[in-house]
């Protein structure tokens, strides 16, 4: 598995599209930062996180769809798919490798986003535009990383299914945009915890503003965690099953 993962990273040599994706995933902080710097208004740490997290919840699923899409699309576009599946490795293992690589890069992107956000807070703190303490930053970090830990696996698996069904990066990207927007519809709903991305958002915000969590917190936490885990397992199994299914003639 490690050899397969190393090979996947090797294939990405000189693939600058991943840098573009990184830039895209950092946009929430860049736009939030620009707004905070150029509008001469003092904001709280929660306000800034709220702004950044809204955009993250909406756009990051799209980034993840494109990310996992590009990893698989590379084989379809270059027509290396046939070679790739005849090296003698089980197909579900090949699928899992790409998914793991997408998870790894997705987590890296999310951590870089958080790091950039903290840099922004630091910069704004020096100029007196925002006040932040360590406990506040720690709470945001925990909330955001929990959100990423829910969003990334589920979304990557969903994206992997779409790219392997469509073999088309445009369809995958557009589905990612729709997926991100539709997920956001469930953020405000009291039963929205059944949708992993909606649940993840509320979890993240809870750590900076506890009043914004669900009215029935225990039910939502247990239900949301179970639904997210269930969605991940189902999507992973469906994705691997579809990919490993032997076609009449592979092409």
């Amino acid at each position, binding site marked *: 598995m490690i050899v397969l993962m190393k090979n996947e990273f090797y294939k990405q040599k000189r693939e600058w599209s991943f840098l573009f994706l990184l830039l895209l995933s950092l946009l929430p902080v860049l736009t939030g930062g620009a707004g905070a710097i150029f509008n001469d208004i003092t904001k709280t740490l929660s306000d800034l996180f709220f702004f950044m997290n809204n955009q993250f919840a909406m756009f990051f699923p799209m980034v993840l769809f494109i990310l996992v899409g590009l990893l698989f699309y590379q084989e379809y576009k270059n027509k290396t798919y046939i070679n790739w599946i005849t090296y003698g490795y089980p197909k579900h293992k090949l699928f899992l490798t790409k998914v793991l690589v997408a998870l790894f890069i997705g987590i890296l992107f999310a951590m870089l986003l958080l790091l950039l956000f903290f840099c922004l807070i630091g910069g704004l703190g020096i100029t007196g535009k925002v006040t932040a303490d360590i406990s506040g930053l720690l709470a945001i970090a925990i909330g955001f990383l929990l959100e990423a830990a829910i969003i990334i696996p589920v979304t990557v698996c969903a994206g992997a299914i779409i790219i392997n069904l469509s073999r088309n990066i445009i369809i995958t990207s557009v589905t990612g945009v729709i997926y991100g927007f539709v997920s956001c519809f469930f953020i405000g709903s009291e039963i929205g915890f059944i949708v992993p991305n909606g649940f993840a958002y509320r979890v993240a915000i809870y750590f900076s503003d506890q009043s914004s969590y669900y009215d029935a917190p225990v039910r939502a936490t247990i239900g949301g965690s179970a639904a997210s885990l269930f969605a991940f397992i189902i999507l992973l199994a469906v994705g691997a099953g579809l990919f490993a299914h032997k076609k*009449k003639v*592979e092409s």
Partner: protein
Amino acid sequence: MLRINNVNLNAGNAVLLHNINVTLELGKIYGVLGPNGAGKTTLFKSILGLTDYTGEILSDNQPVSSRLFGSLIEYPAFYPKLTAEENLRLHARYLKINNPDLKTALEQVNLWEARNKLFSQLSLGMRQRLGIARAFLGNVKYLLLDEPTNGLDPMGIKEIRLLLKERLKSRERCILVSSHNLTEIAAITDCLIFIKNGRIVKILENSYSEQELEIIYEKIITSREEDAQ
């Protein structure tokens, strides 16, 4: 020895391969000849385990593994942003070949000088040769080359012919080359397998003159399967 026994493949109502029976020996180059859509690529894909065929394909009486094969199917597919050498290195890593002799492999196909060029910068002839270099990397037992001279100019075709006959042919290896071009394949192979509508219609030792082969091929192409058999 590669034995293909009663291999059949249908997709819906279409018969892609019908009752394929053939035994291929090491040390020989076999030419699989047939018009476009005859089933050459599908046969190669079946040998590689890329189709859901019925029947059996055995190597020395054991079920085949794709690792026994080096292949160039349809077109030389590589990662365009990796260099020629990096693409071969990646292939070797997948096959877990320790210290692959990439230099020899690239020299055999006259690509050592171009080893640092990105795949996207290679000409079609260079790409085909790189595809062949990849196919025989790791000293594979069977080499499947599907239309390896596709799109090549006469010099390129000659290079591939010399490469196959003078450098790659060995007693420990069996080479299958497909083509729809009789002249080209007759110059390379020891044995000819004629395929039409997914069926093997004739197997011939390549001991005929080009003109005789042309007559045989024409007869096969224009006749009904039963007549040809």
